[in-house]
Each structure stands twice: as structure tokens, then as C-alpha cells.
């Protein structure tokens, strides 16, 4: 069990390194697409991204699931009306979920900030 946990932790940490590979000049949608692709390939974690518009969660990026999963759909609000949806969220531990959300929020914030700077410039 311990070994399994270690492996999971290791896979997750390796996957987190992908965030470092996403260059700052990559805009929000391609950046989120890359995160989603890495998550599916490396962890089997299905995530896709949306713009939250009241009740509407409108697709903007990420891998497309063409089969329902046998677990609940989780919807997590990030900042700036961006949301992440997952049908395999339970494969992550709470610590991993918190870390992922922190990094996604940063990724969104960095891009929104650079967009504002661009607009001002």
C-alpha cells in the first residue's frame, strides 16, 4: 500500500512538473488544453475547462470524454469565472486536489494579468 502511494505521489509530482513546461507566452485556452492532455496521459485524470456564466458552464478547453464515468462529476470554480470539471476527481487525494487547484488558479491569474498588462500597454 505504501509503495502504491509512493508511486501515485511520484506520478502526480512528475505531472505537476508539466506546469513548468507551459511557457508564459502560451495563452489561456492552449495552456489549459495542455494541462488537460497531460492529466489524462500521465494520471488517467479526466479534466476539462469551462467559463462559468451563471448556471451555464461553457466548454473552453480540454480533453473530450465520450463515455460517462462511473463516478460523480465534480465542478470546481477557479478564479475569474473559469471552472474545471472532472469525472475522475476521486483518484486524487485531498492534498493533490488542493495543489492542483492552487496551480490552476495561478495559471489563470498569470494569463489574465498579462492580458491586462497587454491591454494597458
Amino acid at each position, binding site marked *: 500500500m505504501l509503495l502504491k502511494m509512493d508511486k501515485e505521489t511520484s506520478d502526480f509530482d512528475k505531472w505537476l512538473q508539466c506546469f513548468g513546461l507551459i511557457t508564459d507566452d502560451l495563452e489561456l485556452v492552449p495552456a489549459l488544453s495542455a494541462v488537460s492532455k497531460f492529466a489524462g496521459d500521465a494520471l488517467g485524470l479526466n479534466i476539462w475547462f469551462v467559463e462559468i456564466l*451563471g*448556471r451555464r458552464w461553457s466548454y473552453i478547453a480540454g480533453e473530450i470524454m*465520450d463515455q*460517462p464515468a462511473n*463516478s460523480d462529476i465534480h465542478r470546481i470554480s477557479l478564479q475569474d469565472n473559469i471552472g474545471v470539471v472532472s469525472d475522475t476527481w476521486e483518484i486524487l487525494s485531498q492534498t493533490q486536489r488542493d495543489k492542483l487547484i492552487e496551480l490552476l488558479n495561478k495559471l489563470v491569474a498569470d494569463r489574465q494579468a498579462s492580458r491586462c498588462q497587454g491591454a494597458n500597454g
Partner: protein
Amino acid sequence: MSKTALKEWVSEVIKEDEINCYLDGGRDFIDDDLIKRHLRENRNPDPGKIRDIIDKSLSLARLEPHETAALLNVEDDELWEEMFKTGLEIKNRVYGPRIVTFAPLYCSNLCVNSCLYCAFRKENTEEKRRRLTLDEVRRETEALVKTGHKRLIVVYGEHPLSDTDYIADTIQTIYDTKVDNGEIRRVNINAAPQTIANLKRLKDVGIGTFQVFQETYHHETYKKVHPAGTIKSNYQWRLYALHRAQEAGVDDIAIGALFGLYDWKFEVMGLLYHAIDLEEKFDGVGPHTISFPRLEPAANSPITINSSYKVSGRDFKRLVTVIRLSVPYTGMILTAREPPEIRRDVINVGCTQTDASSRIGIGAYSETYGMQVSERQQFMLGDTRSLDEVTRELAQMGYLTSFCTAGYRCGRTGSYFMNIAKKGKVREFCIPNAILTFKEYLLDYASEETRKIGENLIEQRINNIPKKIKPVLLRRLHAIENGQRDLRF
């Protein structure tokens, strides 16, 4: 509002640059001569060729104009029977044996236009004009929620008093209204074409699908039935309404034509070209739904009685079938304009959505006046049966009534939806979600008789659910029996 202020408002609605950016060499995508040529050149099609086209439709590929023209020209009854069956087969492959149900909610019949076929036109002085207050919108919504509805199509005339601000306020009011377990979970709208800036505002309040019907794709007829000087007389402003919606990020869009203004075969071709142009310009995303209302009698609108292009029941079934075969991925809406016997028949050639317990008078759900009053509505309905009756009949026909709004609340919209619909995978979600939402309806709103029939159908449909998700579905059904609501895949 003064006449001058009204005139000024009208003059400022259309933004030419939001038309011109979509034109190709100054022309729109409806080439009347080309459509007529396709129809002419594909007369008397060879049965072998028709069967090849049917096979292509069954592979869920969208047809090309010459192929659709060939289908429209079929005369042989046996071939039509094959096409009817294929329509249902395609629908079942993409969406499964379920029918999504909704209700229309008319918020205002104030209108600045003069469309000859519509009772809302400004010259019709016998129409009793009214715009619902937000409190009245809430009362109408409560009345609908109490019947079990979860989705609405909200309709507005084109007028400064029912402008984008009013539309946004009414949508918000509808979403905020709750009665016990019930609420409206998806608000689609049918409104006049908007600018991109205004569409972004509607997007921000969370509209479901934005629906604009071209009425007729035939340029000359369009000009005849929409008198010059009105906003609606601008064919291209309307034609590109949904391109602008896509541009604004409203990614579920709905097209339609009013059948009976011009040759029905031409209109089907127009709808196909509309779908193709949307696909080409927006990364494969075509119409979420296609509607095919037939011209119905409207107060003080003689054209609705006298039109030489009125569509017979036989041709109506044929045109619905050809649309199904031509654009296999799209949802198709059969409305209560049609009488029950037509709905019973035509739903079986591949329709995916229908309305029930419909009232189209302003304030008609919560007020006590008679079921249909011509001076208060746009046209006369053919089917005013209750949601319970329609749901029961659909169940007897083997259809799950679906109140599902899952896709739009977990990001399966726009290109996501198109991707799975075009692959015939959306049914994997539609069927279990239909079962869950139908179960909710049966427990909360259905009559004893409907509940019994509905529960039997659910039992049958559960047997066909893939093993992987069946245990989860059963757990969720159990949770619904224990009072949980709004569960979904």
C-alpha cells in the same frame, strides 16, 4: 415612448460591419440559383443512389447539398418508408430513445416589425400588447415549475421595451425562481438578432441556446413578407445572427425556417447551407437544434391562410425526414403548433425535442383567461395537452421524456457537444440522464397512471444501460427515491 425615439432606436439596431465581416465577396451563403440548380439537376434520382445517400446518413456524416436535393426529389413511397425508418435509426444512434421536453414562455408581444405572417406585427391593432413585469415573469415561471418543467424557450418581440437589458433581467428572474424541488435549469431564448456586444451580455447571464429562425431563406420571398424599412427586412442581419452569437461565445445556437412562406424543398436546402456555413466558420460547430414550424393561422394575417406554399401533412413528414438525414448530429424540435396526430407520427422520423402544456399568450400560464386567445398570441397552437398527457403518450411509444440539462451545466457545450454528437456518443450520456430526470418527474409531478407507465419504461431502459455505469445509475435512482434531486452523468 415617442414615435421619434422609437424610430431612432430602430435606426441604431443594425451594425453593418457585423454583417459585412461574414460575407464572401459581398455575397451571403444562400445562392438562390445554385439551390434551384441542385433541385433541378437531382430530379428523378436513381434508387441505388438514394440508398447510398441513406447509408452515408447512417454513418452520421452530414450530407452535401446535391445529396439532400436528391432526397428531396424522391417520389417512390417505398423509398420514403426506408427514409422514415432511417430517420428514427439515426436519431436513436445519436441520442437514444428519449425526447427532451420544454415549454415556451412568451414575455412580450410588443414589436417594431411588420412581418405579414405574424400577429405581433405593429400594424395589427387588434393585438392586446403587453410586456410582462419581472414579478409576472416570476409567477409564470412558478406556474411552469409546478407542472414539472425544467427547460424553457423564452420568446420576445423586437422592441426597445424588450431589449437586451429586459431579456437579461427576465432570464435572471427565471433562474432565481424556485418552488419546492422544482426550478428551471436551462433557459433558451428566441429573440431578435443582436449585436455581438449585446450577445456577450446574454452569454454572461447564462442563456442556454440562442434561437433565431430565418423564416424563409428565399431572398425575394423574404423581401415580400418583411416590408422595407423595418429591422427585420434586412435579410443578412438575420442570416448572420447566429454567426455573431458564436463570435460572442454563445456556442449553442439554433436555426429554423417557417415552412409555408416558400417552396419547402428550397427551405430545407437553406437550412442545410446554414448548417454548413456555421460548421465551416466555427471549427465544425453547427446548429445545436433545427426547428421546422409550419405556418399557422394568425390573427389578421391573411397570408397564413392564403399562402400557396402551405405544406401538407405528407410533405411535412418528408421535410422533417430529409433534415434528419442531412444533418444527423443536430437536435430537431417538433412543436405544439402541430396537432397531436401529426406529432405522434412525425416524432418517429427522428425528432429529439418537443414542447408540452404550451401556452403562448402573454401571461397565459398564471392567469385565468381561456386556453387560447388569438388577440394575445402570435398564432394558434395545434396541441394544448398537458405535460402529464404528453409524457404518458411518449412513454407508451417507448420514449423516455428527458428533462436533462446536464450538458450545459458541466461544460459539454459547443465544440464538446458537437464532437460527441457527431460520433454518436452523446446517447451514452442522454439515456442515463433521461432516466434520472424522468424518475424525478414521475415522483414529483406525474399522475398515478403516468407514473406506472413511466416506471415500467424506466425498468426496460435500465436493462440496456452499459454494465460499467449501471450500478451507479441504480444508486442514483435510489437516491432520487430518497429525496435527492438534480443527479446526473
